[in-house]
């Protein structure tokens, strides 16, 4: 089998994964994108391992490791998603702008409002993906 | 003779204050911290004097040395060494730190945080001494930078309590200008490294002639502008009056007495030792800027309504003298620059102590606020102020004179490859600057010390202040009457590779 088959497949999957991470609004979808990227990497690892015939099976072992890490990641990611949902009442990624660089005063205001009505979703540019 | 380096004396000078700065603030009581710091500073002072004596008796050779590998991949070492050029500056730094700490003992800043302030002062001491004794370009640069941040904190946090935005602005301005300067300096260092393949100062000195002259000129210019921001050379002086007028007393003292010296020391060290050929080409420009600084600083002082700013501007003038001395590229110029450096450190530190005391007592350093007749309101304070002013205006018999005199003498007969007539003009203009200096100091004394006394009394000098000031007064007189204390090595210096 040409080595390029799995490689091209993994490249395309990786591209789709990045697209999902960059373009989809819902946090869980973003996590799915990450999974796609990780799988693309795994495919690469396995393909190279098959090609190289490594005595230590490093490709496959690393693929296993990646899967384990992916599991850990999804667990943590999920916890974060839930926490975000709890505090913001939505998990709309591009509506979360707390990292924006604003003047000190503004940021302080925001902090203050966040503390006073936590959970009320004070972000002004919140959009659609909110539960009905 | 016992080689002191076997005792780790040099390491102690650098590491002692640094370790102290890290550990001492752990003591709970800020007074205890200051006391312990004074003890440490005394030890550093003693070791530094011992070191100076050693250097003197070895005719200025590098008797105290130490060398340890630091970053092997870059061939960077902890190379420390002290010679006749750096030894007096190390002693000066140790002395001024000691004086500052003593001054802090009973006069903790109102805003608190004495322990932190003491720690920062010790860091400044460690960094400054380290810069003076570093013989490795990277080490020099790192220690040079180490001094800046603590000073920024000192100005921004403990500065003028009545003007918070002002002191922050002053502190940032100081930081930005000097960091810009050191960036240029770093470029020069990297150029040197790429030319000669080493960061070792001694090796650089040996191989300096290999660099072709175009490159040397470029490096000399970079060094001039880089250190010039620190000196500060006109027209890069604009940060100085602000920084001085907003800094707390100890900050001003260290800034004028130690930090400005880092610039002139660096220029002396690298221009004379490493790129003499290039420096010769650039020297007249440095001399011209120095002279402009002398006259400009003096004129600025004449129209100055604030005593602390006045002294800051007078620093611009005095450092102009040092720059002029450096630019003559002769052993005499070297001796003059070194002497003027130390003399300015001692006298201006004293002036800042006194003016700081006045400012602390009346709340501001404007002539209008201080009021007239200080001679009557607090005689000793006024007397010390008058003596320091007289020393600063270069009266023969006090420390200020010899540096300025030797500078003008060096300008009278500069290096043979330099334009003689130009330097003659420099000398005359510097002389004019001396007269203007006299005028503004006399006018300042007249405005503050003399006249019908204002009604409010001003507390006179107290015991702890005497302790902090007297060493400086004594040194002013000693250096004035016995200039050989500093000039013993002038002929030794003549052996330096100045002549290309």
């Amino acid at each position: 089998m040409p080595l390029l088959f799995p490689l091209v497949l993994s490249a395309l999957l990786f591209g789709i994964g990045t697209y999902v991470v960059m373009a989809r609004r819902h946090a869980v979808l973003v996590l799915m994108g990450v999974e796609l990227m990780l799988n693309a990497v795994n495919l690469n690892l396995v393909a190279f391992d098959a090609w190289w015939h490594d005595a230590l099976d490093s490709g496959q072992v690393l693929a296993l490791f990646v899967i384990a890490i992916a599991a850990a990641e999804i667990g943590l990611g999920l916890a974060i998603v839930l926490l975000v949902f709890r505090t913001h009442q939505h998990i709309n990624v591009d509506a979360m702008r707390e990292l924006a660089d604003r003047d000190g005063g503004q940021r302080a205001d925001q902090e203050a409002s966040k503390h006073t009505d936590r959970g009320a979703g004070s972000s002004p540019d919140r959009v659609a993906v909110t539960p009905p | 003779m016992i080689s002191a380096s076997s005792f780790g004396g040099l390491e102690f000078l650098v590491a002692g204050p640094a370790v102290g700065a890290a550990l001492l603030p752990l003591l709970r009581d800020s007074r205890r911290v200051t006391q312990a710091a004074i003890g440490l500073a005394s030890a550093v002072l003693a070791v530094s004097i011992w070191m100076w004596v050693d250097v003197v008796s070895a005719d200025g050779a590098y008797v105290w040395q130490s060398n340890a590998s630091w970053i092997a991949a870059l061939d960077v070492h902890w190379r420390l060494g002290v010679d006749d050029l750096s030894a007096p500056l190390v002693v000066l730094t140790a002395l001024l730190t000691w004086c500052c700490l003593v001054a802090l003992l009973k006069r903790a800043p109102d805003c608190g945080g004495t322990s932190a302030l003491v720690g920062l002062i010790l860091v400044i001491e460690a960094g400054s001494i380290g810069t003076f004794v570093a013989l490795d370009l990277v080490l020099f640069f790192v220690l040079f930078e180490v001094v800046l941040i603590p000073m920024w904190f000192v100005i921004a946090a403990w500065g003028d309590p009545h003007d918070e935005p002002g002191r922050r602005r002053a502190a940032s301005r100081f930081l930005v200008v000097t960091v810009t300067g050191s960036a240029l300096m770093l470029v020069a260092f990297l150029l040197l490294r790429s030319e000669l393949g080493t960061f070792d100062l001694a090796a650089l000195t040996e191989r300096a002639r290999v660099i072709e002259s175009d490159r040397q000129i470029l490096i000399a210019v970079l060094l001039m502008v880089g250190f010039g921001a620190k000196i500060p050379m006109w027209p890069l002086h604009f940060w100085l009056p602000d920084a001085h007028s907003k800094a707390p007393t100890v900050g001003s003292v260290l800034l004028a007495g130690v930090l400005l010296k880092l610039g002139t020391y660096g220029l002396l060290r690298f221009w004379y030792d490493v790129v003499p050929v290039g420096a010769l080409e650039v020297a007249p420009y440095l001399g011209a800027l120095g002279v402009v600084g002398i006259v400009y600083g003096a004129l600025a002082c004449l129209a100055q309504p604030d005593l602390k700013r006045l002294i800051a501007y007078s620093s611009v003038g005095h450092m102009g003298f040092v720059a002029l001395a450096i630019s003559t590229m002769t052993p005499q110029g070297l001796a003059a620059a070194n002497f003027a450096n130390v003399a300015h450190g001692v006298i201006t530190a004293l002036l800042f102590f006194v003016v700081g005391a006045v400012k602390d007592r009346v709340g501001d350093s404007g002539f209008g606020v201080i009021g007239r007749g200080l001679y009557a309101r607090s005689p000793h304070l006024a007397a010390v102020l008058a003596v320091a002013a007289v020393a600063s205006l270069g009266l023969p018999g006090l420390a200020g004179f010899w540096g300025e005199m030797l500078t003008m003498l060096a300008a009278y007969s500069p290096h043979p490859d330099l334009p003689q007539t130009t330097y003659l003009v420099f000398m005359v203009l510097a002389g004019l600057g001396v007269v203007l200096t006299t005028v503004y100091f006399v006018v300042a004394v007249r405005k503050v010390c003399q006249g019908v006394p204002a009604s409010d009394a001003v507390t006179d000098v107290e015991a702890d202040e005497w302790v902090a000031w007297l060493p400086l007064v004594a040194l002013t007189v000693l250096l004035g009457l016995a200039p050989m204390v500093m000039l013993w090595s002038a002929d030794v210096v003549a052996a330096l590779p100045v002549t290309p």
Partner: protein
Amino acid sequence: MTLGIVLLPVIGAVVAMLAGHRRERIAPLAGVVTTAASLGAALVIGFGHWGDAAASALGPYEISTGGTPILVGLRVDQLSASMLVLATAVALLVQVYSVSYLRGDPRYPTYTALVCLFTAAMSLVVVSDDLFVLLVGWEVMGVCSYFLISHHWELEPAREGAVKAFVMTRLGDIGFLFGIFVIGEAAGTYQISGVITAAEAGSITSGEATISTLLLLCGVVGKSAQFPLHSWLPDAMPGPTPISALIHAATMVAAGVYLVARLLPVYVLSDVAMAVLSGIAVITMLGSALMALAADDLKRVLAWSTVSQLAYMFAALSLAGYGAAILHLLSHGAFKALLFLAAGSVIHAVGTQRLGQMGGLRAALPITFTTMTIGFAALAGVPPLVGFFSKDAVLGVAYEQAMHGEYAVRGWLVLVAGLLGAALTAAYSTRAWLLVFLGPRRGSTAEPSDGADNGRIVAAEPHESPWLMLGPLVLLAIPCLVGSWAVLRPGFLGIEADPLHLPVALISLGLALGAIAATVFAWWQLGAADPAVRLGKFRQVLAGEFHYDALVERVILRPSRFSALAVAANESSIVEPYVQGADTATQWSARLLRWLHDGNLQRYVTTVVLGAVALAVVIGLAQ
């Protein structure tokens, strides 16, 4: 011993400073005792050099400078020995006098300390064998005079005068410093004896000599208050009167004469410098004598007379008349100290310095009157007194040169000016003497007049001063009277000048007596009023001192003040906006870039990936 002369007063100064404020008696004691000890040492040395003993030297100790080394050393020869005796003697008398004059003044310890320091500095100038050490003494004297003149620093004229004195002398001193550079580099040493040897051996070229001596002359002119730096001396009069005596008689102003005398071998190498010196001397001699004629302040009259008499000494020196100049310096030292101390006694009695408010004090102050009369007579050049002979020596030098010397033209110039000056001197001395002691008593309205030196209110009836003040007067009157005996002895101080030049002596005597007679006549005719009225409109010009200060104000002070303001404006309105501008520009560019950081994490990720891809592409293409 020599070092002791310098160090003893310094010790006195330190003791007075440290202990004087605690114990009232220590300060005067320290001042008088150390100065007396110093005088004793000076006398011992002086007797050693009375004949023609060779110079004794101490040192030299070498200070390396990286160039020509400085050789610190002391050296005493006949000239310096006589100057030492003069300086320490006057200083001692001034110290004794001050004990009473400034009794109860809280600033007395500082005052004594400064006087001691002043004495030490003058001694250092005289005994130093190195130009830089000499400069140290020279300038320490300057700063001491600055502090002493501003003794009454509450008073505007005192502050003003002190600043003026210090700045003007220091202006000259810069020239002096450059002169030292030139001469030192030319001679290859800064040692005075070395310089003189070099000059005599001809290893200094005439050009170098001209430049260096002219530059040195700047300092001399500043210190000795000669034209064009003359105007500080009269303005220094608000200082306490004993200080005026010290500055004017034996120390500061005399230092200039001493220096030119000491370096005369270099000066004679340069015709230009000598001609300039003659010109300065002639202008100053006549100008200041004229101003003395119109001044309405006793101390100011004396101050101008000092300037004028110093000009005589410079005139003699400019004709290489070394002996005559020193002779006049010594005799002037004696009678001017006497005059100032006596003036102090008068001021002490009446509480004002204005001539217009004195008069008729002969009866009230008999001893002051007698001694001051002797002083005035010596100044005016009345025969048996020392002033006549010393002035005659100066004129004699001019006469010799005019008749058959190498400086004929200048000899004539100095001779004519000197004779005119002698007449003017006699006239203003007589005028002052008449206005102070004779005639009716004019209003002693006890208002503390401006510039009165301590503004103390005095008893309505003037009374004689205590003996502590009168003693020095009497002691000083003696050399004025019997000094002529010493002067007339040929070979005094190794001076080979002929004791008397009859033709000149007769002419000058005639002129002086004529001037005295004319003044007395005018005074008598005007009914005991100020004879200066006879000068008419010219009096205003003279009293305004030729508007010299206004000229200085317009030509020098105003431009420098203007440039200072320009620099200050430059700092605040040109430099500052640029600095601020850099700040603002940075802020704005930061704001421009900030929209990228809008908090949208997905956009951040996109940027990062895009950047990574772009980097990879660039690197791939590059290889």
